[in-house]
């Protein structure tokens, strides 16, 4: 079989701000046959995107290809001049970025942007290009393919935009398409449509692909072969089946293990019902001007009631825009609820955090999704963890410093990290600090808002394990908000499913396998499985999809 891509002994090095050179890709060999889709998988920092970009002869600022050859259809991308490279880009190699929303220009129609490639390279007349684009829209099963091109990027959904980005990449008839985590930012229900569309178009055109992802289950659906990367080196490569069924390398096993959460002993359900730690009743919250009836113009949370028992965990699950984060903000008082009661530890809380007492604030902590923005980049870890200690507990000097070390120890980070700034930590380390700051308050309840969503599978699994361990030691309760069912299942005693601001179902551990509400069914069946045939065999009731899916 002829090879479309041959990477030989590829080395990429980066220059740090102190002028030191470090090698980030350390001698990689990858081959891709015609019509084959190869997945590059690994945690962040493993070099998967760097390798994918070298296929277009591109390196990010500060990096350079120091050695090796990248033969794409017989041309060595490392040796071509910039002019020759730009001739190749778009026509032979094309790229689908992670965030299509950022890749589209908001002030031009979609059609103009999709056919731009043909204009730049002078491939065909604009009329032909438009026809070709409509064909592609149809092949990618986009709704109303004839007219969708006249819309602007903000007028289509995220899943559709991602498919339009693929159309943009495919219009120049490339021999190789690079997908850089194209579904990571999408909901599970949308992800299925996008994956299906990608797969059928690639197979129909016999196009080779490189699929960069950290999600093994997604990769299993679309790739023929998998290359597992870590620290800029190939750990293992093989066919998808071989990797999934008989992983050889320890890191691959770790990846697989992280995917299947360990079964844990959950606390026995107490016979007599004690007073719940948190009880909310008919909470309504939202945005926009207040209407005459005292409710906001847009209700993101519509009359939700739930309760959390002491020492037990509640999961809230739903797709983006379902109001789960708004609910968390209402409970924490960041966005004052417009109606309803919030009773915490037997006392009714004021809706606005500003009017709650310091102790009430202390006992309920919230941890945000993006540790990057939740930690002040201008402060060292010592200050970040130390502030709640001095603020709530009046600690200072030696006592405070000892407690900071204790907290770092609790979240399993080395003590030396306390002098660093957040930008010097990895994503997982940042999230641990983020969590340690909540622990510093000695809370009774921690609201975790998508805290593992921005992390790689292995790192996320480690964080979940940490949360469980801390719960046993510190008698905590969690409200765990996520769109990822497997994460919620791993840690929660009860699960609430939300859809369009309403609580549609309340599941206990026993009946989590058999949801009754149609939306829960759709949501639960849309979570990718490690089985490579899962996507092909998946049958979703069309009625359900029409009603709830395809955002």
């Amino acid at each position, binding site marked *: 079989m002829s090879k479309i891509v041959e990477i030989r002994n590829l080395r990429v*090095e980066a220059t*740090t*701000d*102190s*002028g*030191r*050179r*470090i*090698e*980030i890709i350390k001698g990689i060999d990858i081959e891709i046959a015609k019509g084959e889709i190869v997945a590059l998988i690994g945690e962040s*920092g493993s070099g998967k995107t760097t390798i994918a970009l070298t296929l277009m002869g591109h390196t990010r600022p500060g990096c350079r290809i120091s050695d090796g050859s990248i033969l794409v259809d017989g041309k060595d991308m490392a040796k071509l001049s910039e002019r020759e490279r730009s001739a190749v880009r778009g026509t032979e190699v094309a790229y689908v970025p992670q965030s299509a929303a950022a890749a589209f220009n908001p002030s031009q129609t979609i059609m103009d942007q999709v056919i731009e490639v043909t204009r730049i390279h002078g491939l065909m007349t604009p009329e032909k290009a438009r026809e070709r684009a409509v064909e592609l829209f149809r092949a990618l099963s986009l709704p109303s393919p004839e007219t969708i091109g006249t819309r602007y990027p903000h007028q289509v959904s995220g899943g559709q935009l991602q498919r339009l980005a693929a159309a943009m990449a495919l219009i120049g008839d490339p021999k190789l398409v690079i997908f850089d985590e194209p579904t990571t930012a999408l909901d599970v229900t949308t992800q299925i449509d996008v994956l299906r569309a990608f797969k059928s178009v690639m197979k129909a055109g016999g196009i080779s692909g490189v699929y960069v992802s950290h999600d093994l289950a997604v990769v299993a659906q679309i790739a023929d072969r998998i290359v597992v990367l870590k*620290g*800029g080196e190939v750990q293992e490569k093989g066919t998808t089946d071989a990797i999934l069924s008989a992983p050889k390398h320890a890191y691959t096993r770790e990846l697989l293990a992280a995917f299947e959460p360990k079964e844990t002993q959950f606390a026995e359900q107490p016979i007599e019902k004690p007073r719940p730690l948190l009880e909310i009743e008919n909470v309504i919250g939202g945005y926009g001007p207040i209407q005459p009836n005292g409710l906001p113009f847009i209700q993101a949370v519509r009359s939700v009631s739930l309760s959390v028992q002491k020492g037990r965990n509640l999961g809230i699950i739903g797709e983006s825009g379902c109001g789960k984060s708004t609910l968390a903000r209402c409970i*924490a*008082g*960041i966005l004052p609820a417009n109606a309803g009661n919030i009773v915490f530890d037997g006392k009714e809380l004021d809706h606005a*955090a500003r009017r*709650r007492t*310091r102790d009430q*604030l202390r006992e309920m902590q*919230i941890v*945000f999704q*993006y540790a990057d*923005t*939740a*930690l*002040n*980049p*201008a*402060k060292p870890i010592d200050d970040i963890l130390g*502030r*709640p200690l001095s*603020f*709530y507990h009046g600690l200072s000097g030696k006592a405070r410093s000892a407690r900071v070390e204790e907290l770092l120890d609790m979240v399993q980070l080395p003590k030396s990290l306390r002098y660093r*700034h957040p*930008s*010097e930590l990895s994503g997982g380390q940042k999230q641990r600090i983020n969590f340690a*700051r909540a622990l510093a*308050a000695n809370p009774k309840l921690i609201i975790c808002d998508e805290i593992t969503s921005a992390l790689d599978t292995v790192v996320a699994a480690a964080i979940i394990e940490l949360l469980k361990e801390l719960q046993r030691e510190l008698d905590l309760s969690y409200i765990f908000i996520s769109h990822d069912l497997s994460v919620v299942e791993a840690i929660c005693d009860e699960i609430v499913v939300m859809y369009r601001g309403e609580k549609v179902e309340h599941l206990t551990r026993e009946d989590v396998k058999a949801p009754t509400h149609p939306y829960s069914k759709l949501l639960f069946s849309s979570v990718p499985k490690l089985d490579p045939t899962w996507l092909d065999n998946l049958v979703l009731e069309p009625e359900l999809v029409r009603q709830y899916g395809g955002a």
Partner: protein
Amino acid sequence: MTQSALSPSRTTSLTGMFGYTFSPVGMIALVVILFWAVVAIFGPQLAPYPVGKIVDMDYFGPISSKLWLGSDYLGRDMFSRIIFGARYTLGIALAGVLIASTSGVILGMAAAVIGGWFDTVLSRFMDAMISIPSKLFGLVVVAAVGSSLPALIMTLAVIYIPGSYRFARALAVNVNTMDFITVARIRGENTFYLAVSEILPNIIRPVLADFGLRFVFIVLLLSGLSFLGLGVQPPLADWGALVHENIQGLSFGSAAVIAPSIAIASLTISVNLLIDNLPRKIRDRSA
């Protein structure tokens, strides 16, 4: 990030001292600023002639061993006049910009953190201030209270507060939406802590850059006011006034015009270069 022992040798230039990188451009700028600072402080000791004394029989005299920068339109020694002028230019501009930037930044951060009515009222008031032409405002104030150094400094400061406020508020509003501010808010922190401890460290770099630019504007406005006779009073003169009073010398190619211009340019450019090239902390500590 992965460590690699590929390149054990570190670059051994100015970069990498005390965990900071120093840019050579920034260092040169600092030397120029220090030079002018020394001139401003020790001016009277350094100047060869008194500031108002006519020492040359000719006007716009050429550069000579006696008069290092020639003479001005009255035959006074240009070199001495620039040395004396440094004090006024540097001192007034520095005092003005310090007052303007400090109050602008404090008000801007307060507006961003408090928000609501406070923000609206303050912002509209500042917008109204911006709409007043600065030279006209200077004329009115100085005409009303007379020309004195404190009045001059306060006028310059008031003229430049709205710009500084707008700039700081725009930056602070962006930082204010970050999650770490939300975390601090629901911890129960007060406005002062939020502004000084959470927001200020994140906006300090652009604020300093703005400080540098504003310094330059003030030097230029001061020159303009001096030209109108509202700035430093004769026989003393700041650099801007020196350029203006010798402007006829331009057709003679006199050093009396060029020398103070160079002084202004060297100071203002250096301030900007220094602010753009402040030492940076090295994040890569694995070496």
